[in-house]
């Protein structure tokens, strides 16, 4: 049967952290999952730095099954930081792990295209894609991260970017409005990433040598005059790029060790729309789920947990239909 004619049990729109966990959880429950993404190259992207925090900051519950394995495979460092844990993940490895796992997982079909509209009918949901496909599923889940945005007013150049250089669904906001789903504005910020070779390592401080669960044993940190601690978080095991975890808009020349630092990825912020939690309980929205940043998650851990819950719930609902 054509991949385009098949009716899926669960349609997951978005293959970020929430989306991959949702697809995984739904497939584990024997659902036929279609994972739709604008770019299969950016699956499970960790765009907001390498640090993982669970929904409950004090207790970092390990994620189940492959979700936990993917983190373990890509761990850079895990060590105590005050009352919590600092967990740093190699985004390239994390992405590779999820990409390959979902490509091989029974019940998961991956398709690269952008969802421009989502419509409900008696049977379930239909996603209309920008390249003209009409994909049907019993239940649908939106996990598009920061890619739901206001349409630019007519006349202005339309450039909807959920992350710098990455495009998303220009018209999905119209479907959201037609479904009567309330949205509110939110904003997310990423700190700068600097080249490791441009840091003056003599002027920064060594983190406490505790037990690290990852291959990197020590993470350095520094301070700008007076204000809080900035962890020099490597974004990969090789450590060639350093994310400034805890940065609060200080100019680099005011930070010890970073006076001559070269920025590889400047700080950026993205304004996006989130969907209110109440929506998920409404009766006529049965079969429509939201997870991740779109549903207000503020960390990868929270996105992952929401994805797992929503994926399992969607699989359950699809069996009842």
């Amino acid at each position, binding site marked *: 049967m*054509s*991949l*385009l004619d098949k009716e899926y049990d669960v349609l997951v729109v978005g293959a970020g952290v929430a989306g991959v966990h949702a697809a995984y959880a739904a497939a584990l429950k024997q659902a036929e999952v279609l994972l739709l993404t*604008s*770019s*299969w*190259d*950016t699956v499970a*992207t960790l765009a907001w730095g390498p640090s993982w925090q669970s929904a409950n900051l004090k207790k970092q519950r390990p994620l189940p099954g492959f979700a936990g394995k993917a983190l373990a495979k890509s761990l850079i460092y895990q060590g105590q930081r005050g009352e919590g844990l600092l967990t740093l993940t190699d985004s*390239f490895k994390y992405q*590779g792990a999820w*990409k*390959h796992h979902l*490509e*091989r997982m029974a019940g998961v*079909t*991956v*398709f*690269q*295209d*952008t969802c421009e509209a989502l419509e409900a009918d008696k049977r379930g949901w239909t996603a209309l894609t*920008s*390249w*003209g*496909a009409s994909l049907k599923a019993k239940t649908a889940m939106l996990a598009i991260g920061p890619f739901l945005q206001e349409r630019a007013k007519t006349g202005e*150049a339309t*450039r909807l*970017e959920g992350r*710098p*250089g*990455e*495009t998303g669904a220009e018209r999905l906001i119209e479907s959201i409005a037609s479904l009567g789903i309330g949205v509110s504005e939110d904003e997310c910020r990423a700190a700068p990433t600097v*080249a*490791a*070779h*441009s840091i003056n390592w003599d002027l920064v401080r060594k983190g406490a040598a505790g037990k690290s669960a990852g291959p990197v044993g020590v993470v350095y940190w520094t301070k700008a005059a007076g204000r809080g601690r900035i962890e020099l978080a490597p974004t990969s095991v*090789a450590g*060639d*790029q350093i994310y400034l975890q805890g940065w609060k808009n200080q100019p680099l020349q005011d930070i010890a060790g970073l006076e*001559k630092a*070269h*920025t*590889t*990825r*400047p700080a*950026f912020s993205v304004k996006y729309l989130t969907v209110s939690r109440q929506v998920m309980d409404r009766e006529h929205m049965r079969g429509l789920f939201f997870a991740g940043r779109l549903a207000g998650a503020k960390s990868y851990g929270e996105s992952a947990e929401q994805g797992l819950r929503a994926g399992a719930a969607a699989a359950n609902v699809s069996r009842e239909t």
Partner: protein
Amino acid sequence: MNDNTRYDIITIGAGHAGCEAALAGARMGCKVMMTAINIDRIAHMPCNPSIGGIGKGQLVREVDALGGEMGRNIDATLVQIKTLNGSKGPAVQALRAQADKRQYSRLMKAKILAEPKIGLRQGEVVAIERAGEEELQVRTADGATFTAKCVIVATGTFLKGEMVIGEIKRPGGRAGESASSFVSGALQRLGLELGRFQSATPPRIWAGSIDATRMIAQPGDVGPLAFSFAGAGRRGRRQKDCYLTYTNKKTHKVIADNLHLSPIKSGSVSAKGPRYCPSIDRKVINFPDRDRHPVFVEPEGWENEELYLQGLTTSMPITVQEKIIRSVEGLEQARIMRPGYAVAYDFVLPHQLKNTLESNAVPGLFAAGQINGTSGYEEAAAQGLIAGINAALKCLGKEPLIVERSQAYIGVLIDDLVTKEIDEPYRMFTSRAEYRLVLRSDNADIRLTPIGHRLGLISDGQMEKTRKKRRGTDECLAKLKATSVRTLDLPGIAVVVAASPAVLKAIDLLRRPEVTIDTLAKIARLGKITKESRHQAEIETKYEGYIKRQLDQIAAQKRLEGVRLPSVDYARIEALSMEARQKLARIKPQSLGQAARIAGVTPADISILMVAIRSKTPAGGEN
């Protein structure tokens, strides 16, 4: 303006051209900034997950011989490697490797991040302007400005990129990635003329949905094979297979029935596409008598279940794409993961560049890669390397590097780009090189490594290795010339040379097609001579006549190549044909040899030019 915003060289774009340019510039001592819209997309392969092939393999070997990075990078990240045309002559043999795309990109990025003289920076360039006498200024979308003596534009297919499937168009340089909206305007304001081309990529399918038993396995070679002269390759390394299958009448019928939906036919893409990498739609239109076309099913990496369908490039609507693919043997159940699509983009008409890849209009502004109207990662890398080298030489106040057609495929590539009218995306072939017996894969190091060493891009160790190879070849030839062989001593060959004299020089025996250097190794005592040197000696002996002829042609042509053309007011040389005057003024050739290659300039025009230069007729001044 502080030190952090002042550079020697800025490269715009971090694709295959941008990476070679930045690495070369930095290794030659310059401070380089590399900008990219997305720094997670460094040296990305948006189309075929492979490096090398006919003509292209030669380019990679040359880039490596000069000190560029592509050869080493693919050697470390390949999934398969083989020699093409192994049964044919050495002039057309080439290496081809399938890459692990993700690893290739990651490794190149690591090298760039490890180079302290390169400042990699994410940002979209929105303006390029002159800034003072000898500087250019680049501004990014976040408002930052940077200045440099040289700017290398290597933006690939991103300029006003627009993707097309069927009748649907969306802005973007690649799937999911924003186009570059402002660089085209910036280049036009600087006085550059742009054209528009179109490229396309085939669908990717899920590996779990093919029937490999119905296709022909295409394994790699046992080896050892390597692109880089600095590497040895590994014999028997783990490799993945490709598969060969064919389209059929059913496929062609699906395409014919749906041609009205193809962007090429319907006219929704008016830009010119590549003749030599055409979509399957175009193949069916152009070759209606062929009842099948080959389709190569290629892996995209080790831990990767996506397969690339070489030969099924299409931008038909998705439902039609699925029908086309499923009509092919072995692909009846294929599941599309990523649809194929076409992308139209602006490019710089390359005749506006010198043969150093610096623009005529703007000193310090270079262009390299697909932006110059080429197609292919290898063509891009070659241009990036030359642009990077010349930008660095300019910053160092030294004479530029001009690679001649007789020296390298790189020379053929650049000369073709800056001399000819490029009306479709340019791809390298061995047939483009008139001296291809001299420009071989096996001797790229002999030809080019001394240059790379002089520039500081090749280590002393590698240079010595190259010298040793040449010495070994000369030693081998000397031994062959000195050794006499009694034909009776070679029982295996005796029958064939039955009509020959009883005693022959080894070198004369080697000229015979059935005799290989391995047969003569023992008797000519070649024991200590390396395989590479022996191989070279063998080729130089077997093809001596042809090689000599090409070397003579090169020498004859050198005279014309050596005549530099000062800036001339061609309009005032009335004896020239009108067409010649227009073309010469447009292309501004650097030498008489280059002028002779311009379409529309006849030998008579060349003679007139020769006279005009010698008698110093009205000229605009010396170069």
